């Protein structure tokens, strides 16, 4: 392949992670570049969420290295990852249900007045602006998120990650609970983040979505990164083949694949 490669924002090498007897990740290499939307696809349990939790510092890998900003880390922690500019929309959204919308959007980075009081007015105002820009409609930024719909909650999780003003944004199935209109809007947003220069990593089971917004498609299968496509060089059938493993049967047979 004779392509001009950009310098990756983050570089993962030989990432391994096991949970007891389950091998969730088995030596994954992955680069995510700025200005690109990289899609991570794979079947349920392939290890996608585990991989992004390692990038966001929520989980520590058993083995492997993470390089970013010219430094190499054995693992990250959530504050370090956020500091380095990595924001994440988790699959479970990680919202505090009993707290209001603005408190969730500013969770961990509340602005202060007089170095003590949380500047609630500013939080409300900026949350409203942000949600309006993202076209997420909610009754009020002072509503506890437990009263909101699945799509609205996802919108808030997306707003929080954008509000962290990082350089890389990770989306773990951001449109899973959204209706057609809402998910189209979020997908457009994700694409535009890529165009604005963010390094975007998105997990999705919807290949139609993946093909409409990604520059690259990485296929994870049984904890291994089995294929790394440029989106323009592949098609959904081929990707499905790698997700299910039917394209690989001969190769695995030769290796004598180990079953977890």
């Amino acid at each position, binding site marked *: 392949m004779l392509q001009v490669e950009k310098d990756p924002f983050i570089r993962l090498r030989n990432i391994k992670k096991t949970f007891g007897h389950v091998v969730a990740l088995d030596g994954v290499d992955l680069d995510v570049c700025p200005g690109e939307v990289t899609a991570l696809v794979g079947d349920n349990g392939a290890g996608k969420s585990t991989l992004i939790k390692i990038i966001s510092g*929520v989980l520590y890998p058993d083995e492997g290295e993470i390089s970013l900003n010219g430094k190499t880390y054995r693992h990250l922690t959530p504050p370090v990852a956020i500091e380095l500019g990595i924001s994440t929309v988790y699959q479970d959204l990680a919202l*505090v*249900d009993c707290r209001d919308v603005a408190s969730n959007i500013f969770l961990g980075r509340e602005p202060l007045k007089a170095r003590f009081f*949380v500047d609630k007015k500013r939080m409300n105002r900026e949350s409203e602006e942000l949600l309006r820009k993202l076209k997420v409609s909610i009754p009020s930024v002072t509503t506890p998120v437990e009263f909101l719909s699945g799509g609205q909650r996802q919108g808030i999780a997306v707003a929080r990650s954008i509000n962290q003003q990082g350089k890389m944004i990770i989306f773990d199935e951001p449109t899973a609970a959204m209706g057609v209109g809402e998910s189209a809007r979020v997908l457009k947003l994700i694409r535009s983040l890529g165009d604005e220069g963010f390094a975007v990593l998105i997990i999705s089971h919807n290949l139609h979505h993946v093909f409409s917004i990604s520059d690259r498609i990485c296929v994870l299968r049984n904890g291994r990164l089995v294929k790394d496509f440029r989106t323009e060089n592949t098609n959904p059938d081929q990707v499905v083949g790698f997700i299910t493993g039917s394209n690989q049967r001969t190769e695995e047979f030769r290796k004598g694949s180990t079953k977890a």
Partner: protein
Amino acid sequence: MQKYVQTDLTKIKLLTSHIFPQLLLILVMLIMVILLSVTSPFFLTWDNLRNIFDHSSLYIILALGMTFVISSGGIDLSVGAVAALSGVCMAAAMQGGLEAGLSILGGLIVGGLMGAANGSIISFLKINPFIVTLGVMSLSRGLALIITGGIPIYGFPRDFTWWGNGHIGPFNPPMLLAAFLTVLAAVVLNMSRFGYYTLALGGNEEALRRSGVSIHLYKIIVYILSGVAAALGGLVVTARLNTAEPLAGWMLEMDSIAAVVLGGTSMKGGKGSVAGTVTACLLLGMLRNGLVILSIPSYYQQLVIGIIILAAVIIAEVRSGKNLAFINK
């Protein structure tokens, strides 16, 4: 159109879940005041009201600390014993010749340390707060007994006993301390970053962690606050009786937890009401006082208070419509 309907519904749900327990409390309190003032002309006199405030102040001080702990999704069973231990430490220090101010400071530090022990074990070792604080409760009670040899210490300088029965205008130091701490707790819980994190801890600890906040730090501070509040309670009890009793503050943890829950703070964490806690403490104080005025034997008091707490918790739960098998069909 659709949107406005939704807004109204949300607001109604909000009102019932947040304000209802408090309204109920105030209603029960009003009914009680009317009943008691009708049955006894003595009830509504200034002397008696002052009495109620005075007695409630100890409960308020401890329950404020407990409000933070329960809001953060924890529980602190050690507060009664920590109050006794701190009181005993203050007394022992004064007996050893230390002046009152420094002895009080020492006692407060002891309370803070017990809280730090609770918080560190709960947070770093991820052990259930019930078990940890039960252990620290026993440990503190044991230390208080060892330090005193089981014999109460009494006879303190005026500088110390002032904290129990001094006078500041029509009030006394425990009342003013309770009032000051109430305002402080309300401001901190509702307006400071620490308060936001306390509630977020109770709501979704993992979300807070993933947002880059050190949950260990904030959890430990919550328990330290509770320990210091308990020590302040120990100061009040010891100064008031002019005696440091190793068995002081017996069951005080239960009274604090009851007041906090009665006041509408959720046992599941994430929601806390300082105003509710204080109202509940005053209500319970009034109830105890009323039962005494009506000369109902003291063992009936426990029964009545127990029934009121159960009724309040059940009503609050029915209103919120959660976790009830017969409602969810």
